[in-house]
């Protein structure tokens, strides 16, 4: 056997063994007496990541024995990565998530109770009044925290100030006024309202807000295994939402978030029931574009509220350092660092801490002051806003499959009867609960 062949053999064996080892095993971080915490973050906004990095640096400086490893995992991937990590026994110590995901994990029994953290940050009085609903969703029926509110926002009714003024109308507060405004603003190449009918999140969030405004919901909140998506209120909302499609651009059935936000910047759309987070896209299109729009709470028809967007904090009970993990979570909710975080993206991150919500530096921030009308609409909405499908632990699954949006697509694009479309989707929800 020549020397070259022998060398090759040795290298190839080494490579094979390395591949085998890589496939077969994980790795344990060397600790060397210090504590390492893994912290997963799904927020990809560079400004937010930068604030989190600064917060971690300060925390490590104040706690010399602790190292926090920030791992950025986008929202689109994080749920499957959590589950994979949980199955492998190497879930992160702490993570940013959401009330919906947390409810699902709580049902699986993999979360660390977090009452100590709430006590550390000052108890129940630490929370802002606008976080009251999210606070309730973060607790078990016994009042124990399994997740901690971090930030929230809501869907509102966006309207073009100029188009509404041209129609001689005030921002609508009821469904009747909403339809009248949509009809008045639809002429020529102009459309009164954007009603997405694609099977996507944008449709889900818009339609779910209309369901809440009609007094309906996906499940009975007192008995979350009872699906109510085919109840009269929800069907009425689906029917009304679908009827508004006649005032919407013909391509609305293909609009997901980017197309919908881009459509709003064309100056051809009068209204849109959508999240406060759209402000960022409008500002990116130009300050004059953002200035064209006003915002009010979603018009009501007997109900109240709208889709609530949120982030919450969680600690997995697989952590070997639960005390340090909870200490770090309390630090994330330290008002000084927390205020920096919410100021990184004020239209998406409304503060859940009372101290920050009323702080002068927050309220007088140029960016916050510049979107006062929008933030006011969100603040009015939040006490009645609701996280999609909670408290049913399958809500995340339904949201991912865009089941609610499927009903809108079936009615608007497929011409199905609203009651039949709602019943079909409600049955899918029931099946998933039964499974």
């Amino acid at each position, binding site marked *: 056997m020549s020397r070259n062949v022998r060398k090759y*053999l040795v290298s190839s064996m080494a490579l094979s063994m390395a*591949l085998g080892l890589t496939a077969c095993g994980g790795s344990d971080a060397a600790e060397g007496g210090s504590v390492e915490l893994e912290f997963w973050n799904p927020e990809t906004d560079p400004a937010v990541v930068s604030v989190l990095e600064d917060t971690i640096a300060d925390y490590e400086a104040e706690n010399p024995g602790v190292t926090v490893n920030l791992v950025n995992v986008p929202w689109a991937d994080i749920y499957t990565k959590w589950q994979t990590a949980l199955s492998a026994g190497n879930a992160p110590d702490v993570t940013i998530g959401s009330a919906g995901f947390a409810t699902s994990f709580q049902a699986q029994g993999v979360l660390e109770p977090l009452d100590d953290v709430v006590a550390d940050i000052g108890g129940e009085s630490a929370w802002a009044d606008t976080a009251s609903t999210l606070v309730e969703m973060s607790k078990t029926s016994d009042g124990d925290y399994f997740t901690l509110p971090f930030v929230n926002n809501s869907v509102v009714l966006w309207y073009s100030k100029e188009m509404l003024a041209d129609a001689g109308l005030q921002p609508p507060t009821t469904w009747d006024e909403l339809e009248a405004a949509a009809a008045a603003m639809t002429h020529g190449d102009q459309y009164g309202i954007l009603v997405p009918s694609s099977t996507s999140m944008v449709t889900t969030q818009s339609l779910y807000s209309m369901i809440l405004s009609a007094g309906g919901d996906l499940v009975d909140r007192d008995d979350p295994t009872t699906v109510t998506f085919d109840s009269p209120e929800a069907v009425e909302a689906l029917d009304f939402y679908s009827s508004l499609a006649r005032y919407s651009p013909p391509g609305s059935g293909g609009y997901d978030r980017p197309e919908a936000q881009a459509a709003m910047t064309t100056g051809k759309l009068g209204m849109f029931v959508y999240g406060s987070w759209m402000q960022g896209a409008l500002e990116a299109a130009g300050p004059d574009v953002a200035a064209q729009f006003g915002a009010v709470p979603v018009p009501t028809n007997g109900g109240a509220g709208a889709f609530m967007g949120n982030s919450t904090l969680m600690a997995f009970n697989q952590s070997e350092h639960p005390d340090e993990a909870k200490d770090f979570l309390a630090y994330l909710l330290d008002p000084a660092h927390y205020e920096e975080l919410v100021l990184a993206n004020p239209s998406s991150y409304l503060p859940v801490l009372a101290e920050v919500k009323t702080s002068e530096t927050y309220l007088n921030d140029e960016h916050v002051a510049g979107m006062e009308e929008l933030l006011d609409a969100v603040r009015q909405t939040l006490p009645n806003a609701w996280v999609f499908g909670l408290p049913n632990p399958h809500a995340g699954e339904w949201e*991912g499959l865009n089941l609610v949006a499927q009903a809108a697509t079936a009615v608007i694009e497929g011409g199905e009867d609203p009651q039949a479309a709602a019943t079909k989707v409600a049955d899918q929800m029931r099946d998933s609960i039964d499974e």
Partner: protein
Amino acid sequence: MSGSSIVQSSPPTRGLTPSRPSSPAPRRSRQRRELLVSLALLAPAAAVIVLLMAVPLVTVVADSFTDRSFISPTSSFVGFENYSDVLTGDAFWPTWSRTLLWTGVSVFFQIAIGLAFAMLLNQRFRGRGGLRAIFLLPWITPVVVVALIWKWMLNDLYGIINNLLGAVRPEWGDLAWFSDQSLALATVIGVNVWRGVPFTMIILLAGLQSVPGELVEAASVDGAGRLRTFATVTLPHLRGILLTVALIFTMFNFNNFDLIYLGTRGGPGDQTMILPVKTYDVAFNGLQVGESGAWATLTLITIAVIAGIYFAYMRRREAKH
């Protein structure tokens, strides 16, 4: 020492010497050594294949017999339940037949238009090289860019194509290419054909250049028109390449995920939903790993049957010739 006398009486052989055949025992040992060396040389490639292909494939098939989901960390064996649910549900057969339609129509037009362009670019004219490079652009453009370009150009509010169409007839400007029930599938097939044609064109152009010029000239001298020359001389020469391209593009289109996912996500409704997108949807939006494994396995079986038919046809054809 008896040992030394043995060494002296039968010196070790180096290499194969026909005049002095080695005894059976050393030959067996050499064969064993060569076998071990061969296995060791194959090991890295085998490890890569096993880890990157066999393990995921076996895992997916194994998962399809469980109720594994991303919602629960535990799972149990459910036999063929996922398969019976998928096969008896409303979604499978329409999705399956739509995938065949998407694949068949795409392959047909990708090859037909690719062949037409290849014949055009096989002519001698000024600027031919530049034109070949330009024609390749759709293929080298990333799919995400292709999907976004077309979605923006065909948008009903701000799309340039819709604006131009609207100037001709106002109602054409309102056409919702990606979301109209009757247009969506044709639109994504059109974009797919646009993207695939350059690749078929380049391969078929290479094939055309291998057609002997003297045969074409001879056909021409014998009075054959262009169409007849194409049918009797060019096409028979291209048959092997055409079949190969057809197989590659059948696989490519059948397994296509990105263009439809980025363009329509299977919508409106399920009008453009094909098997790979549905499999992804069930796994990563519905979080049902076991059920998506059944979708993936049924997709694999379908494509394996298509490939099997192709190879059987090729073998018969080769045997005939």
